């Protein structure tokens, strides 16, 4: 027998055991951090796109700001909005209310839906019984 053919088995060191301890924890922590950052980036992107879309929509010249509104089929708007301003509500050019002391309205106590009371502005369909009276 020729023993020259025989080779001593080489030692292949075994792959070390999966890391445990501080190193493993650090690796896991890094992975979580990357996922966390990705999630926040995505959320910020969504919010940013939404806000930009809204801003562009309001800033567009064709944006309608007519203040006439219909309630229950009755036009009630006497105010008009003529444009938008930043940081607050709509711009209103005409008075929206009058303060002049007590006004008295005479309405039947059994008002029917759709009826109107006194005054220059049509009342909406919802009416309430005239009861009591205030002083000022």
């Amino acid at each position: 027998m020729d023993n020259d053919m025989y080779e001593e088995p080489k030692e292949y060191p075994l792959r070390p055991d999966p890391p445990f301890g501080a190193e493993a924890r650090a690796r896991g922590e890094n992975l979580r951090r990357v996922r966390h950052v990705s999630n926040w980036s995505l959320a910020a992107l969504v919010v940013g796109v939404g806000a930009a879309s809204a801003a562009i929509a309001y800033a567009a010249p064709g944006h309608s700001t007519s203040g006439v509104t219909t309630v229950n089929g009755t036009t009630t708007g006497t105010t008009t909005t003529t444009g938008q301003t930043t940081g607050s509500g709509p711009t209103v050019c005409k008075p929206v209310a009058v303060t002049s002391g007590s006004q008295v309205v005479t309405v039947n106590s059994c008002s029917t839906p759709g009826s109107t009371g006194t005054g220059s502005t049509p009342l909406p369909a919802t009416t309430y019984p005239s009861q009591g009276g205030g002083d000022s």
Partner: protein
Amino acid sequence: MTGEMAAGEIAAIGTRVRVVVWPAGLLSCALATVGEELDRLDREASRFRTDSEISRLRAQNRDGASVFLLSPGLADLIGVALAAARFSEGLVDPTLGEAVAALGYDRDFSLVTGAGATDGSARPENDKSVMPLPGHPTGGWRRVELSGRLLRLPPGMALDLGATAKARGSDRAAAEAFAACGGMGGLLVSLGGDIATAGEPPAGGWPIAVSESPDGSDAPGLSRTQVVRLAAGSIATSSTLLRRWHHGGRTVHHIVDPRTGQPADGPWRTATVAAPTCAEANAASTAALVAGDGAGAWLERTGLPARLVGTDGACSHFGSWPAGDDEPIFLPPGLGAFGYRAVTRVGA
């Protein structure tokens, strides 16, 4: 936030109620909530309804009872009325019920109309004939004790919350509607000219016409209508030109001087005041008319911005009331003259 604005009107508690909101989509919700709140107010404090809480209280007090457990809403209204009396040094007094009734205002004003009311933009009449009316003891409000919801009244005393309840109702309705409709945008409630706001105003503030005419027009014989901007708080007007009627051979009105039990007869016919709450604004405007010659000094002490119209139609401004049109009203910090809780939700 921006959005369209909408206005709607309903009739309640004998007056016209105007609600203005933005965004416009909140109008239906706001109108419904304001209506509910005013219905509650009416059931609590109307002296023209026999089934109201205050009418029942009056009947019971006439029968000898003197201590009452009130609903939270009526306790709130009486608390505001007493705070107004303290604040106005008795110029606004909730114990004038009998005096007002003695002048003929003992039913809904639309019914008083049938007895010769001259409500509207009528000019003051020069009917100075005086029919003697029962004298009224001054300072009746000092004998009313309110502790939480417990009320003690002198036997036979009748409360009349007319001078403050409507304004307080405006405060409550605005706060309730704003909260019930999502707490977004802005809202204005006007109860026959007693105006309260909640939320954010429109850009530049709510434009309000201060006028002696209910429709805001410049009618002959009336002072010039001025437009002011209300960024926050409230505004109210009291006038002897409105709610007038004939009684005992003379023309009377509903602003009664607690010191005499007679209609106020001073040099001012209309007073408009801005304040943090509508209850405060209305108490101050009523007190200014009653104060007569002392109105200017009294208003200066309060620090509240005010506009008074004399019987000759001339306007005088007090505090930070703006001189021109479309200018904002500045409410100095620290106002809140009542020392009473500001706009709160009674039902909350």
